């Protein structure tokens, strides 16, 4: 694992661990978030027949860098009537939840922060951590819009955790492992071994699994959209109703932290989908490194495939955002409890029956 390798490289265990913890932040989350914001703006612009940012740098590529430089210079305002401690810590709590999830994401067969056996469980657990941060932010702002946003957000995330986990359990039941690295390793060699296409199973069961797996993926995808507060489930930060929802009172870098956490979360949920349903870091059609005999190229290709698939799912999230209008609160709840949860249960039972056929 990378942390052990770095510990050996630096000759100091803690320094190695520290560097390996900071690696995904500086190598991936920050550049990814910068360019995901840029991509979001470009995608939205293109879908509305506009051009989007195109002034800062070629094709506007430095737009978000300019934005972040501006945010750094902004005054850091703490409202006089705010709960200071909660107000200051909330953005970091939210970001910590996002960042902690990156620890168990298998970027490639050799690069995974922590190769724990409870990977999926751990990620689902720490990403719900952001609920606490959101509630803290909404409450500490001492603003009615913030509190409304936070309450809606908590209600939404707690509700949608149910179908999301049921969908994941459906897949996990077939896979038989919670270790994300192991799950990725199973779906080897070709894309028809991905779990969404029935996985590396022999016989009739492979074909029987395809449909329930697609349903499980769709339910997880929809529920995960709600968990990261993206449109059509963005009622916690509904601009037209609540100003900016739970982060109404935040300025400067604290506001940027919320953005970073949101885009980080988008990638985390996409990465879980990728690892479980779309083969993780596996290439869909063999490795270039294998065919030309360069061994060190394989992990690099694996990182590429993992990030590529994750980014593709993030793009689909953006695509959905600029397609669908926001759901009303009652529609949101009825979608979760009346549609997604029953379907997830039925799917679970069907997959259970298929697993029994031997």
């Amino acid at each position: 694992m990378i942390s052990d390798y770095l510990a050996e490289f630096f000759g100091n265990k803690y320094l190695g661990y520290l560097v390996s913890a900071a690696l995904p932040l500086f190598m991936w989350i920050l550049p990814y978030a910068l360019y995901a914001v840029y991509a979001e703006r470009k995608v939205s612009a293109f879908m509305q027949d506009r051009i989007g940012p195109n002034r800062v740098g070629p094709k506007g590529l430095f737009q978000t860098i300019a934005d972040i430089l501006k945010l750094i210079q902004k005054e850091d305002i703490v409202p006089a009537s705010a709960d200071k401690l909660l107000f200051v810590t909330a953005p970091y709590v939210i970001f910590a939840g996002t960042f902690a999830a990156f620890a168990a994401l298998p970027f490639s067969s050799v690069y995974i922060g922590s190769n724990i056996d409870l990977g999926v469980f751990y990620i689902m657990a720490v990403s719900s951590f952001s609920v606490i941060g959101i509630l803290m932010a909404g409450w500490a702002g001492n603003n009615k819009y913030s509190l409304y946003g936070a309450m809606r957000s908590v209600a939404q995330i707690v509700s949608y955790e149910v179908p999301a986990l049921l969908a994941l359990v459906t897949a996990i039941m077939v896979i038989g492992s919670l270790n994300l690295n192991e799950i990725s390793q199973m779906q080897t060699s070709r894309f028809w071994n991905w779990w969404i296409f029935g996985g590396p199973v022999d016989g009739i069961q492979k074909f029987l699994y395809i449909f329930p797996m697609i349903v499980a993926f769709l339910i997880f995808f929809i529920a995960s959209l709600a968990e990261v507060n993206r449109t059509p489930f963005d009622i916690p930060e509904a601009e037209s109703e609540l100003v900016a929802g739970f982060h109404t009172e935040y300025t400067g870098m604290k506001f940027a932290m919320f953005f970073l956490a949101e885009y980080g979360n988008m990638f985390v949920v996409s990465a879980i989908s990728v690892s479980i349903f779309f083969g993780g870091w596996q290439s869909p059609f063999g490795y270039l490194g294998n065919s030309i005999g360069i061994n060190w190229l394989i992990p690099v290709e694996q990182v590429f495939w993992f990030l590529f698939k994750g980014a593709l799912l993030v793009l689909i999230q953006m695509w959905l955002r600029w397609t669908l209008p926001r759901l009303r609160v009652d529609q949101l709840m009825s979608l979760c409890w009346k549609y997604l949860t029953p379907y997830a249960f039925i799917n679970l039972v069907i997959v259970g029956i298929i697993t029994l056929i031997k």
Partner: protein
Amino acid sequence: MKQYLRNTWLGIYTILVGMKVTISHLFKPKVTIQYPDVRVQLPERARNRLYVNMDDCIGCDQCARACPVDCIEIETVKAVPGEDLGTTSNGKRKALWVTKFDIDIAKCCYCALCVYPCPTECIWMTDVYEFSEYRREDLIYHFSTLTPEEALQKKLNYQKFEAEKARQKAAQAVASNPQSKQDSGNQN
């Protein structure tokens, strides 16, 4: 139950339709006009900033009178006989020094009513529409080609000429006939 399944199907189907619409817009030509770089062609009779060609202006004051918001201010001074002011491009002889021709474009309502009565067609609407200023006074455009000193000079010239004429007339009247004093008074 049937309604339930139908709702589910409709939910999935309509989302896919919506996604198809948005993805198709990705590849459509953009409608944005990059304004400061690219400008839309203005309509032929677009009304924007006024311009006055002072070479042709005869100081007839018709534009100022036509203006519904009184944004044009004209002051003129008659030319002294010796001075030649030249002619306008359509052959009219100029007889007045235009000492002041101010247009307060901030007041202007772009009705173009001043354009039509002009006998020499020297005032017209240009296609310039970007002329914002930081101070309101900067929006008063001075079109007169005479400097304030020159304008003062012309005024003094004319007053001198008038005074000369009046003096001459008085002298003449006294010399010829004291009885015709009444007539000369009428003439004045």
